[in-house]
């Protein structure tokens, strides 16, 4: 599907109807002048071309309307178009800056044949406010060429190559220089080109030309790379009448979940990531992502998570004028064996583990995946880096060393992300402080242990190489225990050592 006037259509969408009478161009600054970046149908009919200078265009068509081009907004609109097309097939790809390619193998019959599907897709684009040219062919490249030069083609497999041979040279979508050179050499159609031996063409114009030719003629088939990764398992339902009631929508989703889970069970797999897509009649798509801590194929627990997630949405699921399709996709699967009956003890352990993953799933669905964390260890001696937290779903458990018996805790219970500066009075250099002031409160040190010297990890390139730190474990008169350090040495005459609070002990 080709959108020849995507940019101007976008600008029209914003400004609304009523301005349609005059020819319309979008301008951008290039090579020191304002040049035309996009034209609409009327302007194109009046002879305005891309790359033309605006002054020249104004001379040709005095009443031309202009607006500034916005490539990012164009790309965004194309994305919206592609998403709206996902109602027909999950295999949707962008083509260049103004095209959408749908792989409709095996789904045309669901929409009443290929022609009906094409019309439905174009209608959808029309509703969004974008004019399109479309064609259906055996390979994506051929369809793309037909859409641009033989709009409305529905190529029969046996007649396709003959039809493709009649296309002009520019249908190959090559660089302007190459196209021009070919035209000057007397080639008019692809047929002329195809009759030549391919090695002489590739010697003169490079391999890409021959490849493009073979693809357009349907001699070589490439698969499109879809916009979104293809789900492992998918189920969807389209409605003749839009669905608005939340309960009906959820009931339908539950039926889809049942279908998906049955497929997963037949394959001996379970899903880790599920995605529910809600296609609204006004061509917007809402998606809900459900991640689970363990592979699952239980419909009931999945639906519980979906409900939790929908309730927790900050931007509620608004049906508008209704949804006309629902889709449930499993994006990530893992092998999951048959549920086995366990012995008594084993079962209790297994049930406990399952309850725990259920809890994690619920918390993630309600509050977000970054809120549920676990502790992970890193192989480093720097206490600030040695251990941290990571989202539960994206990390695995790590082993922890046992503490040295009969020793008091050597590492604090909490660490500050950024050590906080403190004012310190020390008796003699290299001794623990007598008293220190932290957060405007004076602490009298009664007990102290140290120093424990921790040098920076100079062998790591990324580390900013701070000074060597001398850590002290101190306790104040109230029984609170702190982990403080001195950065730098007293012998160093250039800079005074500075003291910091790094953590708190229990």
């Amino acid at each position, binding site marked *: 599907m080709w959108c020849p006037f995507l940019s101007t259509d976008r600008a029209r969408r914003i400004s609304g109807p009523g301005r349609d009478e005059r020819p319309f161009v979008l301008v951008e600054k290039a090579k020191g002048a304002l040049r035309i970046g996009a034209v609409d149908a009327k302007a194109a009919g009046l002879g305005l071309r891309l790359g033309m200078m605006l002054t020249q265009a104004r001379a040709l068509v005095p009443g031309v309307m202009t607006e500034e081009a916005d490539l990012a907004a164009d790309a965004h609109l194309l994305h919206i178009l592609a998403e709206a097309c996902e109602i027909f097939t999950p295999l949707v790809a962008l083509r260049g800056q103004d095209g959408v390619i749908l792989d409709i193998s095996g789904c045309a019959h669901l929409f009443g044949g290929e022609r009906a599907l094409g019309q439905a897709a174009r209608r959808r684009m029309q509703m969004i406010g974008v004019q399109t040219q479309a064609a259906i062919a055996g390979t994506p490249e051929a369809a793309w060429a037909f859409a641009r030069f033989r709009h409305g083609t529905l190529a029969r497999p046996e007649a396709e190559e003959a039809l493709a041979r009649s296309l002009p040279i520019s249908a190959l979508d090559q660089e302007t220089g190459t196209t021009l050179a070919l035209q000057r050499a007397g080639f008019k159609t692809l047929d002329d080109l195809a009759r030549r031996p391919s090695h002489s063409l590739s010697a003169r114009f490079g391999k890409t030309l021959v490849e493009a030719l073979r693809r357009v003629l349907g001699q070589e088939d490439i698969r499109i790379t879809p916009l979104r990764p293809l789900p492992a398992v998918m189920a969807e339902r389209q409605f003749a009448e839009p669905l608005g009631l939340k309960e009906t929508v959820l009931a339908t989703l539950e039926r889809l979940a049942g279908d998906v889970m049955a497929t997963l069970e037949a394959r001996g797999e379970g899903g880790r990531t599920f995605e529910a897509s809600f296609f609204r009649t006004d061509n917007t798509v809402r998606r809900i992502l459900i991640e689970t801590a363990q592979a699952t194929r239980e419909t009931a627990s999945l639906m519980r998570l979906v409900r939790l997630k929908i309730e927790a949405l900050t931007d509620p699921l608004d049906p508008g004028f209704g949804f006309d399709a629902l889709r449930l996709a499993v994006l990530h699967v893992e092998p999951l064996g048959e549920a086995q009956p366990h012995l008594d003890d084993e079962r209790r352990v297994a049930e406990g583990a399952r309850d725990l993953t259920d809890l994690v799933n619920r918390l993630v669905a309600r509050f977000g995946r970054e809120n549920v964390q676990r502790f992970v260890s890193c192989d480093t001696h720097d206490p600030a880096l040695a251990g941290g937290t990571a989202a539960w779903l994206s990390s695995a458990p790590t082993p922890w060393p046992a503490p040295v018996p009969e020793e008091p805790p050597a590492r604090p219970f909490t*660490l500050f992300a950024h050590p906080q500066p403190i004012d310190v009075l020390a008796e003699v250099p290299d001794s623990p402080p007598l008293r220190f002031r932290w957060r405007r409160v004076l602490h009298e040190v009664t007990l102290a242990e140290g120093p424990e010297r921790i040098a920076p990890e100079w062998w790591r390139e990324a580390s900013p190489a701070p000074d060597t730190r001398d850590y002290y474990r101190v306790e104040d008169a109230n029984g609170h225990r702190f982990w403080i350090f001195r950065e730098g040495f007293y012998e160093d005459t250039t800079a005074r050592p500075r003291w910091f609070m790094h953590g708190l002990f229990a």
Partner: protein
Amino acid sequence: MPEDGPRPICLSVLAEGGLHEFFAAREADGAALGALMLMLSAGRKKGARLWVRQEAQVREAGMPCPAGLVELGANPAEVLLFRARDVATALQAGLESARCAALGAVIIELRGEARAYDLVASRRLALAARASGVPVMMARLGAPPMPSAAQTRWKAEALPSRALVAKAPGPPSFELTLLRARNGQEGLRYCVEWDRDARQFLPRSIPDAGWSARRATSLSGVVVPVPVHRSGTPDLWSRAG
């Protein structure tokens, strides 16, 4: 632990499955409350601990350090950390977790006055905890003791540790005062020291006679304000709930 050593303290009032509140006596005592509750839950119900920590507490007292948890005898692999952005989220997540019988304990830290934690919220937590058998331990920082549906209410305070050789700080020590208990043991005081290797509390004497006086006059630490002007406040603490 040697055979003839002191007998470990069994805090039997912290019965399984119930809501227990711990109030930090002073602002500075709040940092260790999470650790105290991890210690108190050790050796009781098996299962992972779910720890709900408010973002405000992370800013105030830092991020829990797994190496530090190991040093206290806890297994970081068995701790789920839930970071709540506010009190309401913390309570919702706590309630959700309190219903999960597979957990060993639910630890919640609330900072400040926390109006959302009212009688209804605490009653819900207490009921969920009793139904699932999972103890819920609620730390309150920077808030005066308030009536709630908790089974027990404690005041927790850091104690100077037993000095080791060369005046090194010893194992963590706490003073726990029972402010309220259903079975009427109010006013019980425990001075305890954490024995990390045996994962139990040992009794501990107050270091010296001048300690209480010194603490009273000490500059450091913020004393939790007690609303003296409210009529009947002391009665409220001991009776209501």
